[in-house]
């Protein structure tokens, strides 16, 4: 949870059916002010449907959605005025310039936006000099940046980004990640970030929810959820046999998973890493590297396959 306890988004038992197809079955989560909140799930889990429902693009079959403490259906315009979003991919009017596109959406944002503000925001996302260019010639990465400019133009409190790095090259992914961190750190925004790229969430989110088959599986702090998991830690040492004997003296049993080259792969918790490292060093075993293999991917796959 973030510095503030104020709930910005509350989703309770959200359900969305299209005839016999159940896109969302039971999704619940809370986003607090200041969070970078990761919304995780495999393809088809119901992420986009949930996000579209949050933005009133889709009407829920059942469930309650409250943003900024107010019911979404009854206070749609009040709520949307405080949100900036990109849903799936940022599509713009190809026959208009970047500047005109931003102006068009800014005009509907509920606040007065000056031309200098438009230029400032275009500069912030790194598109200075391309303001007058028509969108037809923009790359996907540039459109994504412009999409972020569009989300920020009216200075919203909550930014919702649905799969913002899809289709970007590695540099584009890094740029978007840095932009999101800038939004949180420099502009104090709350960010709800949907993605199936788990490393992205691990790197930038402080809280997350994982959904699968339209249902919430788990939600909470990213670090707490991950630290609660057992790691696979690789110790690269110069004396494998001696190291194995020393491991036998530890109170935990069966922690050795396997040996790969000169690496011992151990099932241990994060707190035990320095203990085992000290044990090896005190017994004249040289430790060349320690690598924690636990990743959000493992945790994620474990949960959705459960």
């Amino acid at each position, binding site marked *: 949870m973030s510095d503030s306890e104020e709930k910005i988004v509350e989703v309770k038992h959200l359900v969305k059916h299209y005839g016999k197809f159940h896109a969302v079955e039971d999704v619940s989560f809370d986003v607090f002010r200041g969070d970078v909140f990761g919304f995780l799930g495999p393809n088809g889990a119901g992420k986009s449907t949930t996000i579209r429902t949050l933005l009133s*693009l889709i009407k829920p079959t059942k469930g309650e959605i409250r943003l900024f403490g107010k019911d979404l259906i009854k206070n749609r315009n009040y709520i949307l005025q405080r949100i900036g979003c990109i849903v799936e991919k940022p599509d713009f009017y190809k026959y208009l310039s970047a500047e005109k596109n931003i102006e068009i959406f800014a005009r509907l944002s509920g606040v007065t936006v000056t031309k200098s503000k438009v230029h400032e925001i275009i500069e912030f996302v790194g598109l200075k000099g391309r303001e007058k260019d028509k969108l037809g010639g923009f790359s996907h990465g540039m459109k994504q940046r412009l999409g972020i400019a569009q989300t920020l133009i009216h200075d919203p409190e909550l930014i919702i980004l649905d799969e913002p790095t899809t289709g970007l090259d590695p540099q584009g992914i890094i740029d978007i990640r840095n932009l999101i961190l800038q939004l949180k750190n420099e502009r104090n925004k709350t960010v709800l970030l949907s993605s199936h790229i788990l490393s992205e969430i691990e790197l930038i989110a402080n809280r997350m929810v994982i959904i699968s088959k339209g249902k919430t599986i788990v939600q909470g702090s990213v670090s707490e959820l991950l630290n609660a998991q057992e790691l696979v830690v690789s110790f690269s040492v110069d004396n494998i046999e001696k190291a194995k004997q020393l491991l036998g003296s530890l109170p935990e049993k069966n922690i050795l998973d396997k040996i790969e080259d000169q690496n011992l792969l151990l099932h241990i918790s994060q707190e035990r890493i320095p203990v085992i490292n000290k044990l090896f060093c005190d017994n004249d075993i040289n430790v060349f590297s320690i690598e924690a293999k636990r990743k959000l991917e493992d945790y994620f796959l474990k949960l959705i396959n459960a």
Partner: protein
Amino acid sequence: MFWKSTYNEFLKIAAKPRSYIGVGAITLIVGIILFAMKVDGHNFISFVTQPFEQSLSFEGKILNGNLIAFIILQMLIIHVPLLIALVTGDLVSGEGAMGTIRLLLTKPISRTSILFSKYLAGCAYTLIILLWLVFLALVVGKIIFGTGDLMVLNSEGLVILQEKDLAWRFLSGFSMAFLSLVMIATLSLTLSCFSENSIGPIVSTMAIIILFTIIGTLDVPVLQKIQPFLFTTHMVTWRNFFEDPLPVDKIISSAIILFVHIIGLLAIAVYKFNRKDILA
């Protein structure tokens, strides 16, 4: 917010290349007609007046700007709906096809306001197209062919309308033509709310016009009962303003039927657009 949205819609229509297809097509077609009438107009007039020459003697300048304007309007008013639907049929579905509808509908403005903004902009475009047609037909026609009395051939026979009696008839006729074109704009906008691509509503609009026109011309008793209620039957009501005496009841009835169609279609569009899940 509504007016800001309407301004946006005007900007979008003005920036879209397809919006100029109508203007270009009308300019080209009217240009060709004006050229043809300038070169061979007298033969054309002789062909029309020949059956009456045994009983009537024609004096004065029959081939004048007023007659040219009337001929052009009669020829084009059936085809202008396609040019209108090309733009208005794309107003909602085009946003879906481009993906911009996702951003548009996450703004703090009601869907009904967005739809009416689009409708108003579509009606303004319709008016611009009609005014351009009027300008080319009437103003340019008069510059090239001069002015004079208008000779109109209708089902009742030949009607000669004096020049001083024409201004209000043209104004009223254009207003009626505008109403029928707004009806087309409303139809294509409504169909646009049901589609995720631009072509569907445009083709559907034309298909409906063609179907209703065919039904309207079939001399089958069962179809004759519904003919008075088809909007296509009333799309040529503008011509009634060039009859003498003026068929007031017929004109009012046509206007009411077109209005009822417009309101009915708008209600369907608002209902559909507000309930639409945006999956594009």
